[in-house]
């Protein structure tokens, strides 16, 4: 089977992490976001994946080529020269996607969940219609596109960001389509939700597959952290090897090359990347520390994302979804509350209120 992943563009919502790094390569739970999806696709028997990109295709190609070889998957980069929306990229990759009559997956690159691809295929073949949309239940459906469907799963209609409660099932950003869908799409900026799905729903060609387990769109820092908590819980439940020992609290994922000093308290819900150094007396909660960063003694971090190769001084306090881009240096004794700091910046004064630091 084949898959197309909508990688898209600049990843602006996840800035400053995505300022100089393509979003699919940003590590989520110590593995690039895209690799989570690719691993799951490979496990489901997918051998060819089209990556619909509009930005930094070369960088991704280089980084992913060795992975692709190792895992035995073919990666094809479909490069949009103009933004084609959420449907246009399918048309652009028409030749590959329609090379055989098998249905193909389409995934939104920002999604994290348990990726039940085998079950999705079964469900899709079961109803035999043109398209399957994965839906998930959320608490605040009004922020998303809401799906209204019958008991057997046939989708009746969509409502974008409803003002009154319609349903709590939303489009989870994962689909299976038969190649015939490509006849509906042209190579031009097209929204799949607004222009393609309504017609398919009217003709009874769209079915909803209910996702079990957790789901999160990790395209912005706040949700990235929520998604990380959910993902770690799921890893634990599946018996994955999480960190244990003195000073580890709850679910904590630590790369084997990271070093943690004495008298620390790490966790719950913390991810520590490769080559990270954490000195003594540090407390980290609900945060991600990317590769190569260093956190000096007695600091306290909560709900923060520390980018690659940062240096955080002693007695620093960071909280409230503070995000540091690559190579940020934070001086000793600084307080950052909800700061978004761009790469290569040195912070020597506190940021007591949420702010973007350029």
């Amino acid at each position, binding site marked *: 089977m084949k898959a197309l992943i909508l990688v898209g563009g600049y990843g602006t919502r996840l800035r400053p992490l995505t300022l100089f790094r393509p979003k699919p390569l940003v590590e989520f739970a110590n593995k690039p976001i895209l690799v989570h999806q690719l691993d799951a696709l490979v496990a489901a028997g997918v051998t060819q994946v089209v990556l619909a990109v509009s930005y930094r295709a070369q960088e991704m190609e280089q980084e992913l080529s060795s992975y692709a070889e190792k895992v035995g998957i073919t990666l094809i980069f479909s490069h949009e020269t103009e933004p084609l929306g959420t449907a246009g990229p399918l048309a652009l990759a028409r030749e590959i996607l329609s090379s055989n009559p098998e249905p193909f997956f389409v995934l939104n690159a920002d999604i994290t969940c348990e990726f039940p691809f085998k079950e999705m295929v079964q469900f899709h073949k079961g109803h035999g219609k043109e398209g399957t949309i994965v839906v998930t239940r959320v608490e605040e459906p009004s922020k998303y596109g809401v799906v209204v469907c019958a008991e057997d799963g046939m989708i009746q209609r969509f409502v974008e960001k409803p003002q009154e409660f319609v349903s709590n099932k939303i489009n989870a950003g994962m689909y299976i389509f038969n190649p015939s869908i490509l006849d509906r799409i042209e190579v031009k900026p097209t929204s799949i939700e607004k222009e393609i799905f309504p017609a398919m729903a009217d003709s009874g060609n769209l079915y909803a597959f209910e996702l079990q387990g957790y789901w999160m769109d990790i395209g912005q820092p706040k949700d990235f952290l929520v998604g990380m908590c959910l993902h770690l819980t799921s890893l634990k439940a599946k018996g994955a090897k999480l960190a244990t020992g003195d000073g580890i609290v709850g679910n904590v994922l630590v790369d084997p090359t990271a070093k943690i000093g004495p*008298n620390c308290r790490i966790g719950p819900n913390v991810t520590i990347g490769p080559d990270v150094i954490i000195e*003594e007396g540090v*407390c980290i909660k609900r945060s991600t520390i990317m590769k190569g960063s260093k956190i000096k*003694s*007695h600091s306290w971090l909560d709900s923060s994302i520390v980018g690659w190769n940062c240096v955080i001084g002693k*007695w620093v306090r960071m909280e409230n979804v503070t995000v540091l881009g690559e190579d940020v240096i934070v001086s000793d*004794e600084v*307080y950052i*509350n909800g700061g978004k700091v761009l790469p290569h910046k040195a912070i020597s004064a506190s940021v*007591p209120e949420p702010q973007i630091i350029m």
Partner: protein
Amino acid sequence: MEDPNGNAIIKAVILIGGPQKGTRFRPLSLDVPKPLTPVAGYPLVQHLIESCIHVPSVKEVLILGYYPADEITPFISEIGPLYSSIKIRYLQEYTRLGTAGGIYHFRDQIRAGLSNTSCFILINGDVCGDFPLSEMLEFHSIKRDIPALLTVLATEATRQQSSNSNFGCIVEDKNSHRITHYVEKPETFVSTLINCGVYICSLDLFPCISKIFSQRQANYYAGEIQDNNGDCWESIALEKDIITPSVGNTGCVYVYRSNRMWSQVKTAGSAIYANRHYLALYRERQPERLANSRCKTRNTPCKIIGDVFIHQTAQIDPTCVIGPNVSIGKNVVVGPGVRIKESIILGDSVIQDHSLVMYTIVGWNGMIGKWTRVEGTPCDPNPNKPFAKMDNVPLFNDEGKLNPSITILGCHVRVPSEVVVLNSIVLPYKELSRSFSNEIIL
């Protein structure tokens, strides 16, 4: 009278006011009289007593105020033995008598044992600094055609600060050093030379005050209504009632200029400023008081930066980093990995592991948890302006928000672990449950 060395004996009088004064020193002054609040390890008034003791001819220090005696006399008894060569006494005023009314009321105690030509030092308890008292005495005693009634210590301030109703402003005759004009807290510019609240007074001052006293008494019993700002008719102010009418080209009030360290101590924030300056003075004059790795008389294993006072009963973990400009009081316990700077930690407080305390006054018996950040904002004088003094910034800005200031924890305040308390004032006995920023917490 003379002392055994043949020097004329003089006395010192320190005016410390009472509970209605020093409200800007809350919440610290809610429990302990402001003059007894430690700064650089010793109560504010003790620093003033020590300034007086450095003058060899001072044989008695009288402390005047209207605090109940039982709040002050225990302190006096405690420090008595430290300064055994002089007598120290607290005289309680029966009501607010003002900066001249108090000394007039106790004139007999002040005059006792002094010769007629003697004088006494008078210090306003609200100030701190390095006072050139011996030099002022010499200056005061110079033979003049018009003998000095009063010598006023003065220092330079900025034009803006002196015209903002903050200080008493002095116009000086450069040749005779007479004060030719004096305005108390003017709203417009008069002079950049300001009154430090430290005086040398001749005993002739008492007849002067007596005249005013008699006048007031006559008016009172004649049934005239007197508005004395809510005080009784016996309350007489030195600045307004004595100095202001006595200055002029043939007046008898003189000014002595100094540029040595001086500051008012009216707000709790100014205590941090005073703390820093007294610690710097220790470095010069009494280095044995500092926990300083250079002086090697104190064996504190933790890391010390700059000037730091640590009481000998305090326990500080060796992994701490303390200073600059920190005073740590009696029995304070500081856990591993704590960083304290520019702060005063009062007695019996506990600060737990990995916390950070800066620009803060932690009141007595405070408790700060682990990984907690307690931080204030300094209100130091503008370093770009020469002679700039501390700004007494109002508590709230024009929009009704709390101005960033030193964080103050009243006594017995408990701050939990892992929170941040920023630019806030916490009243005594409060147990915080979360982070706070820019708030007064009742």
